[in-house]
């Protein structure tokens, strides 16, 4: 309902670009909902960009995708029960994340199994929506994001969750990197690889829950996987890849919000399209870049 009200407000005022950049920026932050959108979007982009590197390194993109879909059933279930969908989302993503993490290597190559569970939970989500008649907007927001409907309280919760996830990632950084590159070797060196796999999936579950607010369940890839996937094509240094991924996620979110402000189309569309366009451009330009030899200096021998 709230989204609808905002939608009407936006179309009524119909902001347009002027030639004055300062006026444009002032107009962008004129509405409180835009300020909140930028705040939440920034936090989510930082978290998504950071964890995305490990998702790509561990080749667990499908698991990230599965988490968000399974979370959808939890969120809609929570709506039926009359509690905030965020709690349902978090409960389901955490439970499935911990399960996937505990199964660890045994789940590798079990895409079919994950896919079957995933399809069923989406079906559950559809049932829950139908049980709660008249709230299609809730479902729509969960599927495709509702960043323009974020309150100051939501921003505060997102900030706390963001600090926790980034803090947890920093705390497990080295052993997580080690076990992501070579599980067997890390284990021999005394790294608790299974516990770490569970912790990682739990962090991912919280990050997915946060990101759902911005891009929704169906579009989560654009913020978690795409920026990191682009970053690792430019650099093979972990910290540089993480910072690049965060930078790209921020750029997509900010640009998407700005474009959406001046257009009648949804934010999620612009964020996902920007991410997709940059990824395609990077992949297509690869043969050319290789020929010219301008693979970023970041991965060259001079960068020690």
């Amino acid at each position, binding site marked *: 309902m709230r989204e609808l009200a905002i939608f009407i407000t936006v179309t009524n005022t119909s902001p347009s670009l002027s030639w004055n950049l300062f006026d444009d920026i002032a107009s962008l932050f004129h509405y409180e909902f835009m300020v909140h959108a930028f705040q939440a979007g920034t936090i989510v982009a930082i978290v998504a960009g950071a964890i995305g590197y490990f998702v790509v390194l561990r080749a667990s993109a499908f698991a990230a995708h599965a988490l968000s879909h399974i979370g959808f059933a939890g969120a809609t279930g929570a709506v039926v029960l009359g509690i905030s969908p965020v709690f349902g989302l978090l409960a389901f993503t955490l439970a499935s994340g911990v399960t996937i993490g505990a199964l660890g290597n045994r789940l590798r190559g079990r895409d079919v199994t994950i896919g079957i569970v995933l399809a069923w939970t989406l079906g559950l989500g559809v049932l829950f929506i139908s049980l709660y008649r008249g709230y299609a907007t809730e479902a729509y927001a969960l599927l495709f994001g509702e960043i323009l409907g974020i309150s100051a309280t939501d921003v505060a919760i997102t900030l706390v969750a963001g600090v926790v996830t980034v803090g947890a990632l920093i705390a497990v950084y080295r052993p997580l990197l080690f076990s992501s590159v070579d599980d067997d*070797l890390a284990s021999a060196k005394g790294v608790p690889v299974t516990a770490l796999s569970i912790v990682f999936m739990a962090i991912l579950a919280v990050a997915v829950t946060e990101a759902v607010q911005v891009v929704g369940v169906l579009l989560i890839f654009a913020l978690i996987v795409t920026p990191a996937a682009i970053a690792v094509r430019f650099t093979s240094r972990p910290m540089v890849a993480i910072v690049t991924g965060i930078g790209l996620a921020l750029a997509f979110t900010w640009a998407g919000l700005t474009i959406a402000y001046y257009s009648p189309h949804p934010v999620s569309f612009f964020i996902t399209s920007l991410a997709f366009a940059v990824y395609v451009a990077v992949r297509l330009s690869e043969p050319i870049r290789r020929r010219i030899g301008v693979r970023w200096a970041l991965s060259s021998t001079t960068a020690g």
Partner: protein
Amino acid sequence: MTDPAIIARDLTASYGARAIWSAGTFMIPSGSFTAILGPNGAGKSTLIRMILGQLPPAAGGLEVLGRPPRRGNSDIGYVPQRTVFDPELSIRGRDFVGLAVDGHRWGMRLTGRTKAAADTSASIDAVGARDYADRPLGSLSGGEQQRLLLAQALVGQPRLLLMDEPLSHLDVRNQGAMVQLITDVARERRLTVLLIAHDVNPLLPHIDLVLYVANGRLAIGRPQDIITSQRLTEIYSSPVEVLTDSRGRLFVVGLEEEVSHPHA
């Protein structure tokens, strides 16, 4: 030679109720180079896992460098069995070797950066991998990856080097170079080396001992004593012939079929 590096007495390995091998009694002297041979699934990697402290003995005693085995022992360098790294794996060889320095510690590397970088570089130089250490691991050849795997195993000056099939995915020329490198590094650093292999031939000029894991038992001996038609036929319980060429090198015939049709 000083104290033995590894002592096993009536050692038995099992996964749950399933026994892998039993009554393994052997001694590995310090500074020796031992090849571990045997058919697929006979339990060669199981022995390595036991020495690493990842699998407790089902029965019997095992002493590694004078102590019971324990996980995360920094006196042991380990090269795990693997085919090759994922070609998409985008991490520099240098960062990978660096993980062996402090990858098991929590948090990020805040202090001791200079020392960690120096240790990493020293290990990379020791295996002659400096030219490609800054390229993504996934983009390197099998031989280059194997050298960097050895480099990470050498970090922290270990006394014991355990290698699980480091030669399997290399061509003949690279196998020879790798064995020579392992031998040189081991001699220079007085390392005890245990190396699992499928083909004993590239190792024959360098090894002191051969440890066979076959038929649920372990058998150890000097190559010239154990790699004989009679002993191998006994160990594998199938006909194996050992031939000697004009330069005194041993050639084992019949094992190829054994390897492709494991019965363990």
